[in-house]
């Protein structure tokens, strides 16, 4: 296990420390890099572009994550109930999108959203007026949410389903003998059984939401006007360091986002485990 620890230290700990170190400096066009103390952090806390992105991913988080996990939970319960025709087919087919590369997923949906290449044109022709137009300011975040949901519903379903499988069959037998119906069993046995897995799935989803990058970046290639250079904090950090050459400030943004994420994930974990007791 020593090789792992060495690799771990090199690939995770070193960059982390280095990025903290970087965040204490300032890059200037003239005069090079100078020590700046915590000035970058002060800038970050008053930076409307950063908070615009944070607001956007928070909104995304609050709406998309519950929908995705809700669907995943219903699907996991349905498959576990044994009342489906073709249960293993469902399990594999729903999980399949997880194997599709994010780039390809966005490409497919991105084209399908397009009214010439895709399906929205056909839908709009059918109803006779422009019912859906994903490439507008009001719709684009929903459009991104849909892609992310599509990619990860099956993955979350499988995590929850695996947790359901660990419930011993005797418990269901006992419940059935006591006259509990399906809904009672779901509420009193199954939901408590998946709580731990649900907390983990929630935390992973929170991490994913705060790091939102791929989907908007690729959609930007299809529809450049709708996605700004600071659409999400991650895109902002990327543009700062690779387009704007403000490496130190990019490191600061990354650290601030890391802290925000850690705090939110920690609160979720506390709440999740407290309810368990």
């Amino acid at each position, binding site marked *: *296990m020593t*090789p*792992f620890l060495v*690799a*771990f230290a090199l*690939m*995770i700990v070193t960059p*982390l420390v*280095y*990025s903290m170190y*970087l965040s204490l400096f300032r890059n200037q066009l003239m005069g090079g890099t100078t020590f700046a103390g915590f000035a970058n952090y002060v800038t970050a806390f008053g930076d409307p572009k950063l908070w615009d992105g944070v607001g956007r991913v928070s909104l995304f988080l609050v709406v998309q994550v519950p929908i995705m996990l809700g669907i995943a939970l219903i699907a996991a319960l*349905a498959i576990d109930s044994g*009342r*489906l025709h*073709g249960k293993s087919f*469902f399990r*594999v*087919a729903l*999980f*399949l*999108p997880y194997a*599709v*590369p*994010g*780039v*390809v997923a966005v*490409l*497919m949906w991105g*084209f399908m959203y397009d009214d*010439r*290449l*895709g*399906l929205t044109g*056909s839908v709009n022709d059918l109803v006779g007026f422009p019912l859906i137009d994903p490439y507008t300011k009001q719709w684009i975040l929903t459009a991104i949410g849909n892609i992310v949901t*599509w990619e990860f*519903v*099956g993955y979350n379903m499988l*995590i929850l389903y*695996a*947790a359901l*499988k*660990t419930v011993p069959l005797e418990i*269901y037998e006992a419940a*059935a003998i006591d006259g509990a119906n399906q809904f009672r069993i779901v509420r009193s046995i199954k939901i408590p059984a998946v709580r*731990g*897995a649900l907390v*983990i799935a929630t*935390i992973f989803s929170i*991490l994913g939401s705060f*790091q939102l*990058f*791929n989907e908007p970046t690729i959609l930007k*290639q299809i529809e450049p006007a709708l996605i700004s250079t600071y659409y999400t904090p991650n895109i902002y950090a*990327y543009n700062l*360091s690779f387009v704007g050459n403000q490496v130190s400030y990019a*490191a600061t943004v990354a*650290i601030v*986002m*890391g802290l925000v*994420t850690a705090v939110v994930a920690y609160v979720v974990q506390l709440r999740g485990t407290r309810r368990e007791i």
Partner: protein
Amino acid sequence: MAAYSYLRPRRSITLTVLLGALLIYSILPLTWMLFSVTKTQPELLSSFGLWFSGPFAFFDNVQAVLTHDDGVFLKWFGNTLVYVVVGAGGATVLATAAGYGLAKYRFRGRNAVFAVILGAIAVPGTALAVPTFLLFSQWGLTNTMWAVILPSLVSPFGLYLMWVFSAEAVPTEILEAARVDGSGEWRTFFTISLRLLAPGIVTVALFAIVATWNNYFLPLIMLNDPDLYPLVLGLYQWLADASGIGAQPVFNLVITGSFLTIVPIVLVFLVLQRYWQSGLNAGSVKA
């Protein structure tokens, strides 16, 4: 009889239909893609997305993808294979060895190591990406294959899965018995533990394979040279070419290229997905 009826529940049409809707949602984009790879560029833009239209151009499209830009697609395919075999393979070996070690041997600082690794799962990948890039550029590693492979080698989540799985699947008594019989630690690991760990290893390997095959962000920041691109980054490049201002529209290339990119990973996935079940099962015992 009540227990019997629970174990053999009545099939429900309503539930099947409900999940059927979800199923259609899941495969809708893939279906659209299956029809689209058979179309020529003009037909793509003018026909209904979920049915055939115009001449059957699938083989022409494949040929166009493979020969575009002197066969750069095949080069990207080869690069992706290298990243997956070395990166994901290495990640699996490291995670297995370390997870097994953490689960089965007591040593000083073990809990501290575990806490740090768990914390690392929660570190946003992008908080690391920019500083990793800067470090690599100082070491002269950017724009080389190593820049993509090295960070892929570390998978805290894989290690966590292997740790939990080792703790469950390999009883300590067996190891003690082997020790009493005079088997060395390495021999025990290769003759006994490895076999018990197999489902967990496949699970970790599959997560690593999917993650490396689909990796986009890391190659995006590390690589400038299109000759080193993995498939997904190449596709992104084509998309940029296709939709830029004054660009030649090559949507048929992008779509057929995407199709060829997902076929191998989907096949691997379908063949090996049943192992994930048992691997994840053990993972969720502790979770």
